[in-house]
């Protein structure tokens, strides 16, 4: 296990990775963290500050200066703003005299040089010399290299008594099988399930479990990045985030300190998830998004089904990344640089999605009805930019054109078939009975019809309406709404939940909108989902994508259709 952790530490490349883990590690060691890493530069050389007793010694102050990877001559005293020697000087000369909280000034101070890897031999004399020169009464230095950190992580998070043998085995398997993402994810998923179930136990175990999930996810991320295969890490990140939220939302009765510590661990999970998502999309999607067929070709699939399944996965993931950017923008104050940056990212991801659709025609028509979930997420994101609306109309128009064409010609029309082997054979037969069975229900057409209403695309609505009346009259057109049971099961998907507005008729646009509006008004408010209520609404989108649950229509935001009151109610941001 130590080797696994050591490998993970050595692979961390950025400050944003190692310093996210350390506060949890210190807390788990019994220290109180009073300064956490923040964006931008360090606080006079200090990345993390904590106070407390370690190894049975007196209470001391630990000031951590973090350097990911090995310490080379360049990292010691180079031009970089992150060079270690200037940082140590800043701690001694500025942080200790000026920023150290007054209540800790009489305590012994330990300046910790935290390295993900090791000190290069050429730098060793320089570091030793610096330490000798600056060590004095009440101030000492410690080197926390990868080996020491690995020991600390193992002893605090993953030791036998707090991470049982079967959980350790699941974790090892999830790492070993990274190139078989489904198996790897299955093991990680079981691990998360096992750890997250500790929420019902005592406060300390609950906090420890969340931190364990976080550190395991970080380790998974590092290993996946090294293996250049982020698939399992992506799915694991989603699963960890959703289980994490499920724990966070149920902490109402716990003491504030526990809630705070669990929230800290959840933030660590979220940061890991964000890193994973970025890494996945950057390495796999961005570079090829603008090249004709490049992403489809990268699937190296044997059939059109492979490409369709993968492309809609990519579409859903890109869309969720965009929705998180929307969320970030909404958190920042008007006029701030951070908000502007986030909005630029929203625009970039929307443009990327359009490019991916343009260059990968498999995305024009789903082969599985539940790929409507990914379509919904993409539309929800693109709807935030009014300049995207024409593109959205064009996409939906072509989608319905192809749907009608495949239904007429017995091509690969969207079906409710779920098993891969059945999809490979689809359509197995031209007879009516088969077609009726394969299209016995749908969320795709009602969702497209709804978006046609929201986008005022009368022709598209008419097209879907014709498909329903002339080809799919037997099909149960439906929309899903969360209900009172959804809050308990949406994040873990451990039971069916929500309610379905079935047998929708697409005869006329006003009638259709009125039917949906009536149900939106009478069903559970989307704000009653804890993720929306507490300001983490993209988690609902993650849950929908990950657990293949339809996106609630209340999330279809960003479209402004003021002249249609019914549409306005559906599209109102929560």
């Amino acid at each position, binding site marked *: 296990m130590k080797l696994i952790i050591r490998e993970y530490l050595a692979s961390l490349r950025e400050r944003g990775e190692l310093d996210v883990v350390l506060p949890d590690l210190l807390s788990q060691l019994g220290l109180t963290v009073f300064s956490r890493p923040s964006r931008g530069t360090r606080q006079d050389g200090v990345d993390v500050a904590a106070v407390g007793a370690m190894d049975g010694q007196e209470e001391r102050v630990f000031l951590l200066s973090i350097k990911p990877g090995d310490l080379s001559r360049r990292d010691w005293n180079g031009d970089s703003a992150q060079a270690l020697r200037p940082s140590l000087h800043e701690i001694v000369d500025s942080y200790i005299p000026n920023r150290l909280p007054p209540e800790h000034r009489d305590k012994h101070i330990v300046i910790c040089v935290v390295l993900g890897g090791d000190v290069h031999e050429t730098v060793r004399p320089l570091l030793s010399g610096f330490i000798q020169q600056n060590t004095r009464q009440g101030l000492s230095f410690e080197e926390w290299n990868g080996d020491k950190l690995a020991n600390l992580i193992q002893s605090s998070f993953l030791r036998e008594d707090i991470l049982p043998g079967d959980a350790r085995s699941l974790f090892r398997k999830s790492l070993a099988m990274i190139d078989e993402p*489904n198996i790897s994810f299955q093991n990680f998923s079981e691990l998360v399930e096992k750890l997250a179930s500790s929420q019902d136990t005592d406060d300390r175990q609950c906090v420890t479990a969340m931190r364990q999930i976080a550190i395991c996810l970080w380790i998974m991320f590092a290993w996946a990045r090294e293996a250049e295969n982020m698939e399992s890490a992506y799915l694991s990140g989603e699963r960890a985030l959703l289980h994490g939220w499920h724990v966070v939302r149920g902490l109402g009765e716990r003491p504030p300190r526990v809630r705070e510590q669990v929230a800290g661990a959840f933030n660590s999970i979220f940061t890991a998830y964000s890193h994973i998502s970025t890494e996945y999309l950057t390495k796999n999607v961005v570079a090829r998004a603008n*090249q004709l067929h490049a992403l489809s070709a*990268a699937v190296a*699939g044997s059939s059109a089904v*492979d490409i369709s399944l993968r492309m809609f996965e990519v579409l859903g993931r890109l869309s969720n990344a965009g929705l998180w950017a929307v969320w970030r923008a909404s958190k920042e104050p008007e006029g701030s640089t951070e908000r502007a940056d986030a909005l630029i990212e929203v625009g970039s991801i929307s443009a990327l999605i359009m490019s991916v659709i343009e260059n990968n025609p498999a995305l*024009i028509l789903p082969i599985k009805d539940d790929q409507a979930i990914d379509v919904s997420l993409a539309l929800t994101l693109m709807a935030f930019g009014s300049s995207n609306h024409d593109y959205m109309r064009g996409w939906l128009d072509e989608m319905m054109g192809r749907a009608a*064409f495949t239904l007429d010609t017995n091509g690969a029309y969207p079906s409710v078939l779920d098993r891969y082997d059945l999809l490979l054979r689809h359509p197995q037969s031209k007879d009516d009975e088969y077609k009726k069975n394969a299209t016995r229900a749908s969320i795709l057409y009602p969702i497209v019809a709804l978006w046609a209403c929201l986008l005022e695309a009368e022709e598209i609505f008419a097209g879907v309406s014709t498909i329903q009346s002339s080809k799919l009259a037997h099909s149960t057109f439906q929309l899903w709404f969360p209900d009172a049971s959804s809050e308990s099961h949406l994040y873990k998907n451990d039971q069916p939940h929500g309610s379905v507005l079935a047998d929708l008729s697409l005869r006329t646009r006003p009638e259709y909108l009125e039917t949906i509006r009536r149900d939106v008004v009478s069903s559970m408010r989307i704000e009653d989902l804890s993720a929306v209520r507490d300001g983490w609404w993209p988690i609902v989108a993650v849950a929908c994508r990950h657990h293949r649950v339809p996106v609630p229509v209340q999330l279809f935001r960003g479209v402004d259709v003021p002249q249609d009151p019914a549409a306005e109610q559906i599209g109102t941001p929560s």
Partner: protein
Amino acid sequence: MVMDPDIDSAALVSELTSLHNSRRIDVVREFRGLTNDGGSEFFMVRHIFEETLPSLDAAVAEVMDTVVHLCRAGGHDLAAGTVVTPFIAFCGNDSQRPRDAIALLAACPGDFGELLVAIVMVGARSEPNDFFEHAERLSLSGEVSQRQRAIMALGRLASMATIGVQRALAAIEAALRADNVDEMRAAAIKACGPVMASSGVESAYGTDFLRSVVEQGGDHTLHACAELLWLHGVQLPPDLVAPVFDQLRNVDPQHTGTIRNIDLAVSGLLRSELRPHALSLLCSLLEAAKVSITDLGSTMAALSRDDGFSALATEWFASGRRELCQAIGDIVLGHHQDTARLRFDDARLVAAGETADRYFIGKRAVGFLFAKPKATIAFLCSLLTGTDSDVDAAIRHLILDPMLLNYPGSGREALESCREGGGEELGRSIDELLGSLQEYLEMLGGGQRLKALEVPEADRESYRRYMTVTMEESMREAEKKSPILSLVHRSTLLYGRTSINYVFQADGSSQRMEVPMSTHGVSVEFPRMSNIDPVGLNFRLRVLRNEPRA
């Protein structure tokens, strides 16, 4: 009755004849018990009877009984009627036998009808007028089937100098006047056609008579016309050609026997003076959607080898008619090798005073030949003239997309082979196209793997299982249709590289034979878009096949 293959059949025939003629056995009666269980043994055993029959001393009635039984037991096999020839020989050995036979037949036409023509023919050798009159009489009364046979017999007698064509035709006409039904007309055509075609007699009366029969039509009549065209088409009198071809345009597509005859006729006439008539008939049958070219296997094969195939393909693509274009596609797919020289050739269009719309022809070619990339690209390259830059650019774009983007491997090979013998201008176009293809392939990522996007191993395994099952099913279906596999014994060898067999010699010794095993494989390049954009590809091909001329 079991046939031992090692028995000397000549000795057996001699022994049987001797035993029968000495009344120790009754060969005729024994063979009446021979039944056909579906294997080849029935015909092997019956052959012994056929060899024996001419030398037998037996009652005509019993022989006729056995011959008819063996004939009927042969079913629809092409060899079913071979037993009639030795019967003719049997009758020919005694002048009384034909007389007895015709008397028996007249008494029981239902029992011995199959032998009518044979009896008349053998009887007419010695008593032509008597047997002509027998046939004439039989053609005027009785069941239709008997009258048909009588007409056939009259037709056969027409070639005898003592009877003559004129007299035979008059008798046939009289039979038709008595009952002018479709079956009788068919019999008349079958009887008279060969006479008219092979006797070299320029008989205006005969031609007029036959034309009037043909023009009345009818399913049986058309069947007979198709057979006439197949067997004697080239020799038909000129005045008869047009009516026969015209009538065949009315064929009912359900009548597969007639269609088969038309197929054999058209394929045979493609290299004759009647080629224009044959192609015209083919065209109208295809255009009327009465048949698909795949129903006409011999014609497909003949056209695929035909020197004028390129000109025909160009003409049919230029017509834009879906059925004709589909026929070209089917011929290329079924018979034409990818490397064969299908080229743009507007000879037929020029002859018809039409101008070729090269871009339109190119689009139709892509639409219908798409599954044969080498043939398609070769055809498209031949459309590049270097004289009209807009049309050339449009055709080059067709070569790139959809052809090269779908078939980068065989497409590249096809282009390289087109370069050989092409001009400088074509060479430049090919360089440009290969450059565009290379650019596209490089854009795909240059072979760098993105493991996170790749298909999971479990799905790959499912796909392999799916393909295995599909291929096994296809193999079984193909084996069911194989004419060879039903004839041979099948052995499954689990190990080794050669198969050892012992071949037995006439002297009883055996010789060891080692047959080395070889592999047989076919490689097919699937269009890339069938995975990347199957719906788009399907739609585009349909557009290329159906869009009207601009």
